[in-house]
Each structure stands twice: as structure tokens, then as C-alpha cells.
């Protein structure tokens, strides 16, 4: 059913630390790799080795330059994927019920066998989280690796989304954002985590942690008082004489 459930028992989601993300694209590769064999049809590529390659991805990493009022510009790497919104517009526009939000954990999923590939959900999403697979003709999106996080056959440390598991800098965190005492919720509270495009009132679950303030460069050396040397003796006489000649 494409009516939103109104409440969910958990709000599973990601917290992405823009301070530590180095833009290595490992999460993009891990996501593509896992979802080539996991939930639903594989993420296809078109003309992968040709002149105009294109493909379906559930996660893309942008790079932005931000110019603060004072100081140097900063480069910020910005992973973008489904935010598993509480008021997900992609769910309510779906004419077939293929798009839905789960009551038990809040994950927004697509039932691919009911998807007609009309593309309206992708139009309704402000974040570009959904891509229609050109090969299968059905909508693909982040599943929060629903086939990993509950998978008892995997070792416990692997029961988290592939992007989180693979991130070499620990910039991605996974957990229940509906529980104020969870690790991710405490992280969001401590670091002033924010939601994207709040003006569109989609109420995203995922949060982004802002880059920390950069240290300001010290212009004066700590050794400055010691560097003000006065030449003595013959060197002093020479220094004074040369100064007068100038």
C-alpha cells in the first residue's frame, strides 16, 4: 500500500560524516557490487566499456567547494543516496503499491515485481535517490541492504549496509535514528547533524554531520620573541656601518 504507515517501530538510517569523508568512492563500488547480486534485479550498465558508458547506481559521491566568509575555501565530499524519509513523496505517488515504507524499520523499498516503471517516484524524490534501470525497466533504490542487516548467515560484523561496512574512514554510520539513545542518535546530537532540503518537508531519516571548523593558521611564530637578535661586537659594528651606508 502506498499510503504511508504514519509511524514506524524503528527509523533505520545512515549518518554520514562530511568531516571525515575523503571521497574515495569505496561506498559507491561496494553498493554496486552488493546490489549486483542482492535484493531484486542486478544494477545494469549500458555501453560499460564503450564511448558513452552509463549505469544504475544507488549511491553517488559529489564534491563541493565551500567558501567561508573568512579563511580558505574547503572541499567537501558529499555522498548522496536514499534518505528513507518519514513523509516519503516517492511512496504516495506510486500508482501500483510497488513503492512502500516498512512499518517494522522504516526502510523505503520497491517491490520490483509490481513496478511498472512509470518513473513518477523518481520525479517526486528531491534527492535523486531513485534510478530506473534501463535493462530491467523497474525502479532501483537504496534498500539499506535489507538482505545484509537481517542476514543470520553473515558474520555479525557484516550485518550492516555494504557502504557502511566498506568505508575506510568510518564516515558512514548505520543505526536506529528513532531511538534517542542509539549510537547514531547520540552522534547526531553531539555533532549537530542536519537533514537535506528541510523546506520540502519530506522529513528525511538520514542525517549529515557538518565538517568541523578548520584550525586557523598561526601567522606569528611561537619563537618570535627569541628571533629579535641584536648583533654584538664586530658584527654589530659592521651592521651599524652598513646600515648608515644604505
Amino acid at each position, binding site marked *: *500500500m*502506498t*499510503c*504511508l504507515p504514519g509511524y514506524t517501530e524503528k527509523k533505520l538510517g545512515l549518518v554520514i560524516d*562530511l568531516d571525515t569523508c575523503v571521497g574515495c568512492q569505496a561506498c*559507491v563500488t561496494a553498493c554496486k557490487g552488493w546490489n549486483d547480486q542482492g535484493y531484486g534485479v542486478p544494477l545494469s550498465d549500458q555501453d560499460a566499456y564503450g564511448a*558513452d*558508458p*552509463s*549505469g*544504475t*547506481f544507488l549511491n553517488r559521491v*559529489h*564534491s*563541493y*567547494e*565551500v*567558501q*567561508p*566568509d573568512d579563511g580558505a*575555501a574547503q572541499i*567537501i565530499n558529499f555522498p*548522496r543516496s536514499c534518505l528513507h524519509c518519514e513523509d516519503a*513523496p516517492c511512496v*504516495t*505517488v*506510486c*500508482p*501500483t*503499491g510497488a513503492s512502500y515504507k516498512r512499518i517494522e524499520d522504516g526502510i523505503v523499498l520497491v517491490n520490483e515485481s*509490481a513496478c*511498472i*516503471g*512509470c518513473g*513518477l517516484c*523518481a*520525479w*517526486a*524524490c*528531491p*534527492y535523486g535517490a531513485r*534510478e*530506473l*534501470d*534501463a535493462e*530491467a*525497466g*523497474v*525502479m532501483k533504490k537504496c534498500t539499506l541492504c535489507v538482505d545484509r542487516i537481517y542476514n543470520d548467515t553473515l558474520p555479525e560484523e557484516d550485518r550492516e549496509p555494504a557502504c557502511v561496512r566498506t568505508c575506510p574512514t568510518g564516515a558512514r554510520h548505520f543505526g536506529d535514528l528513532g531511538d534517542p539513545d542509539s549510537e547514531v542518535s547520540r552522534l547526531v546530537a553531539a555533532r549537530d547533524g*542536519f*537533514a*537535506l*532540503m*528541510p*523546506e*520540502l*518537508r519530506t522529513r528525511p531519516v538520514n542525517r*549529515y554531520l*557538518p*565538517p568541523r571548523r578548520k584550525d586557523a593558521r598561526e601567522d606569528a611564530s611561537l619563537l618570535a620573541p627569541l628571533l629579535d637578535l641584536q648583533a654584538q661586537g664586530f658584527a654589530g659594528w659592521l651592521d651599524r656601518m652598513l646600515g648608515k651606508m644604505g
Partner: protein
Amino acid sequence: MNPAPSVIIFTVLSGLGFGFLAWLCSGIATPDGLHGLLVFALGYGLAVGGLVASTFHLGQPMRAWRAFTQWRSSWLSREAWVSVAALLAAAPVALGALAGREPGLWGLVAAALCLGTVLCTAMIYAQLATVPRWHHPLVPVTFVLFALAGGAILLPLPGVAAVLSAGLAAVLAIGFRIGDGRFAGAGSTLATATGLGRIGAPRVFEQPHTGGNYLTREMIHVVGRRHAARLRSIAVAGVALPALILPLLPPVAGVALALCAHLAGAFAARWLFFAEAEHVVGLYYGRRPLPEKG
């Protein structure tokens, strides 16, 4: 947004067809006998032809029947229901016309359903807050006016069609002007899209991929905006011309010419409706809203 031909043909033809059927069912000028039945068949042909064209842009057209299930939340699903209800409701009116019977109250119900279909089509676009140009009450008003004006030209109801055409041209021109300020007015920028506005002014440093993808092809589509101003003039002039042609020219030539002008305007307007619409996801890729026209 990508101006896909199937969606443009669908919205123009089915809009005209349902507008025509609405007038036929209203009882204002219902032709009777075999001629009446053929006129109804033309309305059905346009409406159904448009609906069939709409399935060409689906990734899985064989599952289209599933679109009937989510009428409680989805305008696309409501459109499916209302369109079928309208086509079924108009059938007894068409058969009644063959026997020379007036449409009566049932005809008004059928007419309302026909216009309801056009309204649902428009709401599929107008509901999207992600495309600020579409997210405005004038969008459904324009779609319904297109249907009413086109239907009145076909019927023909020259006087009514002339008034509606003039009104449609005015609404279209106002809609273009209002639409230009909608993206900036909605308040979404790269700063709100990334949340980085708290540090300073962000700009794109490097794109996430060098090739195109579904998002860039479907929603971040930039095409033909160089000719936008000229096409807008063609659209407004096309839909306005019937207001001059119908009172001046003799019936058959007048209706034919008015219909051609109306359709030329309708196709130009609908192409611009998609080509000029900007999706907020373009912000992530550094696309800025179109500069506001003075």
C-alpha cells in the same frame, strides 16, 4: 524535465478527446443519429489513443493494470480509475445519441468524469513539489481550459470556443510569467540541498560521474531553451487564433483552421511545459534555475 514525445502526445490528445466528450455528454449540443455516434467515436479515439500512447513510456507496460490499486494516495492511479469511469459513463450517452435521446442528468455525470480525468492528469504534475514550475494551481486550470477550448472548437461551438480560446491564451501567458519565478520562490538552493550553506556559499567542485545517468537524462534535461521565447509566442498565438478565426471565417474552413492553430499551440505549450520545468535534483549537479525573464 525530459519532453518525452509519448507523454506530450498523450496529454494533448487525451485532453482534447476528454474535453470533446465532456461537451458531447453535457447536452449543450449533442448530435444524434449515425452522425452522432461517429462524432462520439472521434472523441473516444482521441481519448483512448492518448491513453495508449501514455503506456509507451512505461518500463513494464504489461503490468499497467496494477495502476488501479492505489487510488487512495496516487493521482496517477486516480487518473486510471476516472478515465475508465468516464469512458464507460459516456457509452450510454453515445448510444442514446444514436437513438436521438437527450443525455440528461447522466450526461452531466459523464461530462464531469471526462473533465475529472483531465484534472487528474494535471494533478500528477501539479502535486510535485520537486518541480516548482508545475507545483501551482494554474497548472490544473490550464489543462482543463485546454480540454474545454479544444473540445468546443471540435464540436463546434464557435462562440464558446472563441471566448475559451481567448481565456486560455491569457492564462497560458500568465502561467509562463508566474512559472519563471517559481524555482527561486520555492527556496531550494545548493546550500539547502547539501546543508553546506551554514559554512558559506557552495559550488560544484567535481561531478560524481563523467557520463550521463537516468537523473541527468530524465530530470536535468536541458534542451531547446534557446528558442523558448519564440515557442512561447507560438503557443500563446496558436491557442488565441481560434478566437479570431471562428467568428470571421465560414464554418467548415474556420473550424479546420482553428483546430490546426489550437493543436499547434497545444503541442508547443506542452513541449515547453516539460522542457522548461526544472527539478530540484539538478541543484546537486550545479544546475541553476533559469534566469528570471523581465
